[in-house]
Protein backbone atom coordinates (compact mmCIF):
# COMPACT_ATOMS: atom_id res chain seq x y z
CA UNK A 1 0.00 0.00 0.00
CA UNK A 2 2.85 2.42 0.79
CA UNK A 3 4.46 1.72 -2.56
CA UNK A 4 1.11 2.40 -4.13
CA UNK A 5 0.84 5.84 -2.58
CA UNK A 6 4.47 6.49 -3.45
CA UNK A 7 3.90 5.85 -7.12
CA UNK A 8 0.78 7.91 -6.84
CA UNK A 9 2.60 10.98 -5.57
CA UNK A 10 5.48 10.36 -7.94
CA UNK A 11 3.15 10.44 -10.91
CA UNK A 12 2.17 13.98 -10.08
CA UNK A 13 5.51 15.14 -8.69
CA UNK A 14 7.26 14.30 -11.92
CA UNK A 15 5.71 17.29 -13.58
CA UNK A 16 7.00 19.88 -11.17
CA UNK A 17 10.52 18.60 -10.58
CA UNK A 18 11.78 19.28 -14.10
CA UNK A 19 10.19 22.65 -14.66
CA UNK A 20 13.43 24.60 -14.91
CA UNK A 21 15.25 22.18 -17.17
CA UNK A 22 12.89 21.39 -19.99
CA UNK A 23 10.31 23.55 -21.64
CA UNK A 24 9.21 20.69 -23.88
CA UNK A 25 5.69 19.38 -23.33
CA UNK A 26 5.60 16.61 -20.74
CA UNK A 27 4.19 13.22 -21.59
CA UNK A 28 0.68 12.57 -20.33
CA UNK A 29 0.27 10.81 -16.99
CA UNK A 30 -0.52 7.14 -16.45
CA UNK A 31 -4.15 6.77 -17.61
CA UNK A 32 -5.10 4.49 -14.73
CA UNK A 33 -3.85 6.92 -12.11
CA UNK A 34 -5.61 9.76 -13.91
CA UNK A 35 -8.73 7.60 -13.97
CA UNK A 36 -8.55 7.13 -10.21
CA UNK A 37 -8.08 10.87 -9.78
CA UNK A 38 -11.04 11.59 -12.03
CA UNK A 39 -13.06 8.96 -10.20
CA UNK A 40 -12.31 10.65 -6.88
CA UNK A 41 -13.40 14.03 -8.28
CA UNK A 42 -16.62 12.39 -9.44
CA UNK A 43 -17.05 10.72 -6.07
CA UNK A 44 -16.55 14.07 -4.37
CA UNK A 45 -19.31 15.53 -6.53
CA UNK A 46 -21.64 12.75 -5.46
CA UNK A 47 -20.76 12.93 -1.78
CA UNK A 48 -20.87 16.71 -1.55
CA UNK A 49 -23.68 17.49 -3.97
CA UNK A 50 -25.49 14.22 -4.59
CA UNK A 51 -25.05 14.63 -8.33
CA UNK A 52 -22.48 13.91 -10.98
CA UNK A 53 -20.50 15.98 -13.43
CA UNK A 54 -21.67 17.50 -16.67
CA UNK A 55 -20.59 19.64 -19.58
CA UNK A 56 -23.16 20.12 -22.31
CA UNK A 57 -25.74 21.54 -19.90
CA UNK A 58 -23.70 24.73 -19.52
CA UNK A 59 -23.62 25.22 -23.29
CA UNK A 60 -27.39 24.64 -23.36
CA UNK A 61 -27.84 27.43 -20.81
CA UNK A 62 -25.73 29.76 -22.95
CA UNK A 63 -27.77 28.86 -26.05
CA UNK A 64 -31.07 29.33 -24.24
CA UNK A 65 -29.99 32.73 -22.90
CA UNK A 66 -28.80 33.83 -26.35
CA UNK A 67 -32.08 32.82 -27.97
CA UNK A 68 -33.97 34.51 -25.16
CA UNK A 69 -32.04 37.76 -25.68
CA UNK A 70 -32.64 37.85 -29.42
CA UNK A 71 -36.22 36.56 -29.48
CA UNK A 72 -37.77 36.45 -25.99
CA UNK A 73 -41.25 35.44 -27.11
CA UNK A 74 -39.84 32.67 -29.28
CA UNK A 75 -37.81 31.29 -26.37
CA UNK A 76 -40.62 31.45 -23.86
CA UNK A 77 -42.87 29.44 -26.17
CA UNK A 78 -40.39 26.58 -26.32
CA UNK A 79 -40.26 24.26 -23.36
CA UNK A 80 -36.69 23.25 -24.14
CA UNK A 81 -35.41 26.79 -23.66
CA UNK A 82 -37.59 27.66 -20.70
CA UNK A 83 -36.21 24.72 -18.79
CA UNK A 84 -32.76 26.27 -18.92
CA UNK A 85 -33.97 29.80 -18.29
CA UNK A 86 -35.32 28.91 -14.86
CA UNK A 87 -37.96 30.96 -13.06
CA UNK A 88 -36.67 34.32 -14.26
CA UNK A 89 -35.84 35.50 -10.75
CA UNK A 90 -32.24 34.40 -10.63
CA UNK A 91 -29.86 34.61 -13.55
CA UNK A 92 -29.79 31.39 -15.59
CA UNK A 93 -26.00 31.54 -15.35
CA UNK A 94 -26.21 31.13 -11.59
CA UNK A 95 -26.26 27.45 -12.29
CA UNK A 96 -24.24 24.57 -10.93
CA UNK A 97 -23.18 23.27 -14.33
CA UNK A 98 -22.16 26.69 -15.60
CA UNK A 99 -19.80 27.20 -12.66
CA UNK A 100 -18.52 23.67 -12.98
CA UNK A 101 -17.65 24.17 -16.64
CA UNK A 102 -15.85 27.43 -15.83
CA UNK A 103 -13.85 25.35 -13.38
CA UNK A 104 -13.12 22.79 -16.09
CA UNK A 105 -11.64 25.51 -18.28
CA UNK A 106 -9.55 26.82 -15.38
CA UNK A 107 -8.44 23.32 -14.37
CA UNK A 108 -7.51 22.36 -17.91
CA UNK A 109 -5.44 25.50 -18.27
CA UNK A 110 -3.76 24.91 -14.91
CA UNK A 111 -2.78 21.36 -15.75
CA UNK A 112 -1.72 22.33 -19.26
CA UNK A 113 0.48 25.17 -18.01
CA UNK A 114 2.18 23.01 -15.40
CA UNK A 115 3.09 20.49 -18.09
CA UNK A 116 3.92 23.08 -20.79
CA UNK A 117 1.15 21.83 -22.99
CA UNK A 118 -0.63 25.13 -23.55
CA UNK A 119 0.07 26.02 -27.14
CA UNK A 120 -2.04 27.82 -29.68
CA UNK A 121 -2.73 25.65 -32.69
CA UNK A 122 -4.98 23.18 -34.42
CA UNK A 123 -4.87 19.56 -33.37
CA UNK A 124 -5.33 17.38 -36.43
CA UNK A 125 -4.24 14.30 -38.31
CA UNK A 126 -1.19 14.56 -40.59
CA UNK A 127 -3.11 14.40 -43.84
CA UNK A 128 -5.73 17.13 -43.54
CA UNK A 129 -5.55 20.91 -43.78
CA UNK A 130 -6.44 23.24 -40.93
CA UNK A 131 -9.55 24.34 -42.77
CA UNK A 132 -10.86 20.80 -43.22
CA UNK A 133 -10.14 20.03 -39.59
CA UNK A 134 -12.08 23.05 -38.38
CA UNK A 135 -15.07 22.24 -40.59
CA UNK A 136 -15.05 18.69 -39.25
CA UNK A 137 -14.77 20.01 -35.69
CA UNK A 138 -17.82 22.19 -36.20
CA UNK A 139 -19.87 19.41 -37.82
CA UNK A 140 -18.81 16.90 -35.17
CA UNK A 141 -19.63 19.37 -32.44
CA UNK A 142 -23.04 19.96 -33.98
CA UNK A 143 -23.84 16.25 -34.04
CA UNK A 144 -22.55 15.92 -30.50
CA UNK A 145 -24.69 18.80 -29.27
CA UNK A 146 -27.78 17.39 -30.94
CA UNK A 147 -27.13 13.84 -29.75
CA UNK A 148 -26.33 14.95 -26.22
CA UNK A 149 -29.66 16.74 -25.90
CA UNK A 150 -31.54 13.79 -27.35
CA UNK A 151 -29.85 11.44 -24.90
CA UNK A 152 -30.24 13.89 -21.98
CA UNK A 153 -26.53 14.18 -21.41
CA UNK A 154 -23.10 13.81 -22.91
CA UNK A 155 -20.12 11.64 -22.11
CA UNK A 156 -19.57 13.38 -18.76
CA UNK A 157 -23.15 13.63 -17.59
CA UNK A 158 -24.46 10.32 -18.82
CA UNK A 159 -21.59 7.91 -19.42
CA UNK A 160 -19.30 8.93 -16.57
CA UNK A 161 -21.70 10.07 -13.84
CA UNK A 162 -24.59 7.80 -14.73
CA UNK A 163 -22.18 4.92 -15.25
CA UNK A 164 -20.83 5.21 -11.72
CA UNK A 165 -24.30 4.99 -10.17
CA UNK A 166 -25.17 2.11 -12.53
CA UNK A 167 -27.93 4.00 -14.31
CA UNK A 168 -29.39 1.70 -16.98
CA UNK A 169 -29.89 4.43 -19.59
CA UNK A 170 -26.34 5.67 -19.08
CA UNK A 171 -24.83 2.28 -19.75
CA UNK A 172 -26.98 1.76 -22.83
CA UNK A 173 -25.91 5.23 -23.96
CA UNK A 174 -22.22 4.54 -23.31
CA UNK A 175 -22.26 1.32 -25.33
CA UNK A 176 -23.96 3.15 -28.20
CA UNK A 177 -21.34 5.92 -28.16
CA UNK A 178 -18.61 3.34 -28.65
CA UNK A 179 -20.71 1.50 -31.26
CA UNK A 180 -21.37 4.71 -33.19
CA UNK A 181 -17.73 5.74 -32.94
CA UNK A 182 -16.33 2.45 -34.18
CA UNK A 183 -18.94 2.23 -36.94
CA UNK A 184 -18.06 5.68 -38.27
CA UNK A 185 -14.28 5.41 -37.71
CA UNK A 186 -13.54 3.58 -40.95
CA UNK A 187 -15.08 6.31 -43.10
CA UNK A 188 -13.13 9.03 -41.37
CA UNK A 189 -9.73 7.37 -41.23
CA UNK A 190 -8.26 9.91 -43.65
CA UNK A 191 -8.84 12.65 -41.11
CA UNK A 192 -6.94 11.02 -38.27
CA UNK A 193 -4.48 8.43 -39.54
Amino acid at each position, binding site marked *: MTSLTKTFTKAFEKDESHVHIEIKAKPYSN*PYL*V*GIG*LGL*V*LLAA*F*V*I*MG*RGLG*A*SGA*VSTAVAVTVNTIAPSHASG*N*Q*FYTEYLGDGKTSPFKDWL*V*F*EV*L*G*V*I*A*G*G*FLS*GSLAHRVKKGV*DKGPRVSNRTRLI*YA*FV*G*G*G*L*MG*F*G*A*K*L*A*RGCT*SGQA*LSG*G*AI*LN*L*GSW*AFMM*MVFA*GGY*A*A*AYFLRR*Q*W*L
Partner: protein
Amino acid sequence: MNAPFYKFNLFGFDVSLIIAFAIGIGFGFMLERGGFGSARILAAQFYLGNMRVLKVMFTAIVTAMLGIFYLSVIGYLDLSLIYVSNTYILPQVLGGLILGVGFVIGGYCPGTSMVAFSTGKIDGLVYVLGVAFGIFVFGEMFPMLEGFFNSTDLGKQTLPSFLGLSYGLVVFLVVVMAIGAFIAAEWSEKKFADRNPEKSI
Protein backbone atom coordinates in the same frame (compact mmCIF):
# COMPACT_ATOMS: atom_id res chain seq x y z
CA MET B 1 -25.47 9.28 7.70
CA ASN B 2 -24.79 12.79 6.47
CA ALA B 3 -23.91 12.66 2.80
CA PRO B 4 -24.69 13.95 0.19
CA PHE B 5 -23.97 17.13 2.13
CA TYR B 6 -26.03 19.41 -0.09
CA LYS B 7 -29.17 17.33 0.27
CA PHE B 8 -28.81 17.58 4.03
CA ASN B 9 -28.67 21.33 3.72
CA LEU B 10 -25.18 21.62 5.17
CA PHE B 11 -24.61 24.63 2.93
CA GLY B 12 -26.70 26.84 0.69
CA PHE B 13 -27.07 27.38 -3.02
CA ASP B 14 -24.42 30.09 -3.30
CA VAL B 15 -21.81 27.93 -1.61
CA SER B 16 -22.73 25.11 -3.97
CA LEU B 17 -21.64 27.29 -6.88
CA ILE B 18 -18.19 27.75 -5.35
CA ILE B 19 -18.00 24.01 -4.86
CA ALA B 20 -19.06 23.57 -8.49
CA PHE B 21 -16.13 25.70 -9.57
CA ALA B 22 -13.69 23.76 -7.37
CA ILE B 23 -14.96 20.39 -8.58
CA GLY B 24 -14.78 21.70 -12.14
CA ILE B 25 -11.11 22.56 -11.63
CA GLY B 26 -10.42 19.01 -10.50
CA PHE B 27 -12.39 17.64 -13.45
CA GLY B 28 -10.59 19.81 -16.00
CA PHE B 29 -7.21 19.12 -14.43
CA MET B 30 -7.70 15.38 -14.61
CA LEU B 31 -9.01 15.49 -18.18
CA GLU B 32 -5.95 17.44 -19.29
CA ARG B 33 -3.57 15.13 -17.37
CA GLY B 34 -5.15 12.18 -19.11
CA GLY B 35 -4.47 13.58 -22.56
CA PHE B 36 -8.09 14.45 -23.24
CA GLY B 37 -7.16 17.91 -24.46
CA SER B 38 -5.92 16.41 -27.69
CA ALA B 39 -8.36 15.41 -30.42
CA ARG B 40 -5.84 13.06 -32.02
CA ILE B 41 -5.46 11.04 -28.83
CA LEU B 42 -9.21 10.94 -28.28
CA ALA B 43 -9.92 9.90 -31.87
CA ALA B 44 -7.18 7.25 -31.79
CA GLN B 45 -9.46 5.37 -29.39
CA PHE B 46 -11.59 4.46 -32.40
CA TYR B 47 -8.56 3.26 -34.40
CA LEU B 48 -7.36 1.10 -31.48
CA GLY B 49 -3.98 2.83 -31.39
CA ASN B 50 -4.43 4.71 -28.12
CA MET B 51 -6.94 3.49 -25.57
CA ARG B 52 -6.69 6.33 -23.05
CA VAL B 53 -10.39 7.19 -23.38
CA LEU B 54 -11.45 3.71 -22.37
CA LYS B 55 -8.82 3.37 -19.65
CA VAL B 56 -9.46 6.70 -17.98
CA MET B 57 -13.22 6.48 -18.30
CA PHE B 58 -13.58 2.96 -16.98
CA THR B 59 -11.08 3.51 -14.17
CA ALA B 60 -12.98 6.63 -13.13
CA ILE B 61 -16.32 4.82 -13.28
CA VAL B 62 -14.98 1.88 -11.26
CA THR B 63 -13.37 4.18 -8.68
CA ALA B 64 -16.48 6.30 -8.19
CA MET B 65 -18.74 3.25 -8.25
CA LEU B 66 -16.72 1.46 -5.57
CA GLY B 67 -16.56 4.64 -3.50
CA ILE B 68 -20.31 5.19 -3.68
CA PHE B 69 -20.99 1.53 -2.96
CA TYR B 70 -18.79 1.28 0.11
CA LEU B 71 -19.74 4.67 1.51
CA SER B 72 -23.39 3.64 1.22
CA VAL B 73 -22.82 0.22 2.74
CA ILE B 74 -21.21 1.71 5.83
CA GLY B 75 -24.15 4.10 6.03
CA TYR B 76 -22.24 7.32 5.39
CA LEU B 77 -23.91 8.13 2.10
CA ASP B 78 -27.64 7.98 1.49
CA LEU B 79 -27.78 6.35 -1.94
CA SER B 80 -31.48 7.07 -2.32
CA LEU B 81 -30.73 10.79 -2.34
CA ILE B 82 -28.36 10.58 -5.29
CA TYR B 83 -29.96 11.87 -8.44
CA VAL B 84 -30.68 9.09 -10.93
CA SER B 85 -32.09 10.39 -14.18
CA ASN B 86 -34.90 8.52 -15.86
CA THR B 87 -34.09 6.04 -18.59
CA TYR B 88 -35.65 6.86 -21.95
CA ILE B 89 -34.18 3.96 -23.80
CA LEU B 90 -34.80 4.79 -27.49
CA PRO B 91 -33.81 8.46 -27.39
CA GLN B 92 -30.73 7.52 -25.40
CA VAL B 93 -29.69 4.77 -27.79
CA LEU B 94 -30.15 6.99 -30.83
CA GLY B 95 -28.54 9.96 -29.06
CA GLY B 96 -25.58 7.77 -28.14
CA LEU B 97 -25.11 6.68 -31.75
CA ILE B 98 -25.24 10.26 -33.03
CA LEU B 99 -22.82 11.28 -30.29
CA GLY B 100 -20.40 8.49 -31.18
CA VAL B 101 -20.38 9.54 -34.82
CA GLY B 102 -19.92 13.16 -33.78
CA PHE B 103 -17.03 12.07 -31.55
CA VAL B 104 -15.08 10.60 -34.48
CA ILE B 105 -15.86 13.50 -36.80
CA GLY B 106 -15.11 16.27 -34.33
CA GLY B 107 -12.53 14.54 -32.18
CA TYR B 108 -13.90 15.76 -28.86
CA CYS B 109 -16.86 15.51 -26.55
CA PRO B 110 -18.26 18.64 -24.88
CA GLY B 111 -16.16 18.37 -21.71
CA THR B 112 -12.89 17.62 -23.44
CA SER B 113 -13.41 20.38 -26.00
CA MET B 114 -13.48 22.86 -23.10
CA VAL B 115 -10.11 21.53 -21.97
CA ALA B 116 -8.75 21.66 -25.52
CA PHE B 117 -9.93 25.25 -25.81
CA SER B 118 -8.34 26.17 -22.49
CA THR B 119 -4.97 24.82 -23.64
CA GLY B 120 -5.05 26.90 -26.80
CA LYS B 121 -6.57 24.53 -29.37
CA ILE B 122 -8.51 26.47 -31.97
CA ASP B 123 -10.36 23.35 -33.09
CA GLY B 124 -11.54 23.00 -29.51
CA LEU B 125 -13.14 26.45 -29.66
CA VAL B 126 -14.72 25.72 -33.05
CA TYR B 127 -16.02 22.47 -31.64
CA VAL B 128 -17.68 24.24 -28.69
CA LEU B 129 -19.38 26.58 -31.17
CA GLY B 130 -20.50 23.49 -33.08
CA VAL B 131 -21.98 22.01 -29.91
CA ALA B 132 -23.84 25.26 -29.29
CA PHE B 133 -25.16 25.17 -32.85
CA GLY B 134 -26.25 21.54 -32.46
CA ILE B 135 -28.11 22.40 -29.26
CA PHE B 136 -29.72 25.36 -31.01
CA VAL B 137 -30.92 23.10 -33.83
CA PHE B 138 -32.27 20.65 -31.27
CA GLY B 139 -34.00 23.48 -29.44
CA GLU B 140 -35.63 24.73 -32.64
CA MET B 141 -36.75 21.22 -33.55
CA PHE B 142 -37.88 20.46 -30.02
CA PRO B 143 -41.64 20.85 -30.59
CA MET B 144 -41.27 18.26 -33.37
CA LEU B 145 -39.02 15.92 -31.39
CA GLU B 146 -40.83 16.18 -28.10
CA GLY B 147 -42.91 13.03 -28.62
CA PHE B 148 -39.87 10.89 -29.38
CA PHE B 149 -37.81 12.63 -26.71
CA ASN B 150 -40.28 11.56 -24.03
CA SER B 151 -40.99 8.10 -25.42
CA THR B 152 -40.00 4.72 -23.94
CA ASP B 153 -39.73 6.05 -20.41
CA LEU B 154 -38.57 3.25 -18.14
CA GLY B 155 -38.43 5.41 -15.04
CA LYS B 156 -35.49 5.42 -12.67
CA GLN B 157 -33.75 2.21 -13.61
CA THR B 158 -30.41 1.00 -12.41
CA LEU B 159 -28.56 -2.05 -13.67
CA PRO B 160 -29.23 -3.99 -10.43
CA SER B 161 -32.97 -3.25 -10.54
CA PHE B 162 -33.21 -3.95 -14.28
CA LEU B 163 -31.24 -7.20 -14.22
CA GLY B 164 -32.70 -8.32 -10.92
CA LEU B 165 -29.23 -8.81 -9.44
CA SER B 166 -27.86 -7.58 -6.15
CA TYR B 167 -25.99 -4.29 -6.19
CA GLY B 168 -22.80 -5.96 -4.97
CA LEU B 169 -22.88 -8.52 -7.77
CA VAL B 170 -23.26 -5.83 -10.43
CA VAL B 171 -20.35 -3.92 -8.87
CA PHE B 172 -18.24 -7.04 -9.08
CA LEU B 173 -19.25 -7.70 -12.71
CA VAL B 174 -18.41 -4.13 -13.70
CA VAL B 175 -14.97 -4.41 -12.07
CA VAL B 176 -14.29 -7.70 -13.87
CA MET B 177 -15.49 -6.26 -17.17
CA ALA B 178 -13.30 -3.18 -16.71
CA ILE B 179 -10.19 -5.26 -15.97
CA GLY B 180 -10.96 -7.39 -19.01
CA ALA B 181 -11.29 -4.25 -21.11
CA PHE B 182 -7.96 -2.94 -19.76
CA ILE B 183 -6.17 -6.15 -20.72
CA ALA B 184 -7.67 -5.95 -24.21
CA ALA B 185 -6.71 -2.27 -24.42
CA GLU B 186 -3.07 -2.95 -23.52
CA TRP B 187 -2.93 -5.66 -26.13
CA SER B 188 -4.53 -3.47 -28.77
CA GLU B 189 -2.15 -0.58 -28.09
CA LYS B 190 0.80 -2.89 -28.72
CA LYS B 191 -0.72 -4.33 -31.86
CA PHE B 192 -1.65 -0.98 -33.39
CA ALA B 193 1.30 0.98 -32.03
CA ASP B 194 1.83 2.64 -35.41
CA ARG B 195 -1.54 4.37 -35.04
CA ASN B 196 -0.70 5.95 -31.70
CA PRO B 197 -0.35 9.72 -32.06
CA GLU B 198 0.92 10.11 -28.49
CA LYS B 199 4.43 9.13 -29.52
CA SER B 200 4.72 11.93 -32.06
CA ILE B 201 3.22 14.70 -29.93
